[in-house]
């Protein structure tokens, strides 16, 4: 089995499961297909020599964010019956506009040439945790700290918003 075939198979499966996310009527099924999509994207990362990002993608997305989505779905007790329906006109127009966006993107990138960056040494071990950690704590240490502030803000906001006490919100 050649590597090309594996890559194309992975790409096709990723697109297929992403399509199933938006086609599935039941929201829980959508979440499960989205988890499958994230696993397939992680497989793509591994094929691209980005091993650490692949593992982090599985832990953070499939492990944390999607579990949060599932918890909220269970909490809200949604069923297939009260799933909101979209009219056919909206569906068709959304499909047309989305396809137009895809067409424009493909037309733009079809003939684009992606030249290499000058004066930069390439590193064959670029996806390993040693390089990423070094880069994260030297060149990108300020964005790293800012993202921790963002996390604190998001945490406080989530706790405040989801609190049952009405006096805080009003």
């Amino acid at each position: 089995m050649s590597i090309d075939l594996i890559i194309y198979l992975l790409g096709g499966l990723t697109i297929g499961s992403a399509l199933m996310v938006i086609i599935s009527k039941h929201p829980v099924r959508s979440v499960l297909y989205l988890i499958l999509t994230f696993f397939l994207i992680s497989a793509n990362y591994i094929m691209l020599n980005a091993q650490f990002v692949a593992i982090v993608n599985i832990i953070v997305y499939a492990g944390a964010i999607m579990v949060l989505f599932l918890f909220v779905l269970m909490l809200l007790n949604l069923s297939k019956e009260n799933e909101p329906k979209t009219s056919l006109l909206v569906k068709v127009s959304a499909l047309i506009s989305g396809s137009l966006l895809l067409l424009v993107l493909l037309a733009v990138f079809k003939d684009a040439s992606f030249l290499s960056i000058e004066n930069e040494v390439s590193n064959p071990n670029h996806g390993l945790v040693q390089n990423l950690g070094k880069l994260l704590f030297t060149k990108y240490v300020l964005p790293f700290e800012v993202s921790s502030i963002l996390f604190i803000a998001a945490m406080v906001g989530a706790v405040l918003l989801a609190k049952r006490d009405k006096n805080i919100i009003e």
Partner: protein
Amino acid sequence: MILSTVFEAGISIQYYVILSAILFSIGVIGVLIRKNAIVLLMCIELMLNAANLLLVAFSSYFEQSDGQVFVFFIMVVAAAEATVGLSILIMAYRNIRTVDVSLFNQLKD
């Protein structure tokens, strides 16, 4: 340890660009055709992942780690967005007992 890349095996960078464009468009179509607010948030995650895939592909193509560091920051933003978005949804559900985005129209009148 020298690892051979998929680009040496004959896959062009255009393939990943097109794959990301398709995934992003699927996310956009999902946002447009679904009315369940939780599914909308999931489609936004799908679009963010398409951007992540493109960043990782270019990082691998140029053999530079910078793109993968940006993927971490996108993940941070996605996690923060998901938690705040879901808590807003829980609050809205508690008040009007639905997650249909077309019924979130109380500011209109």
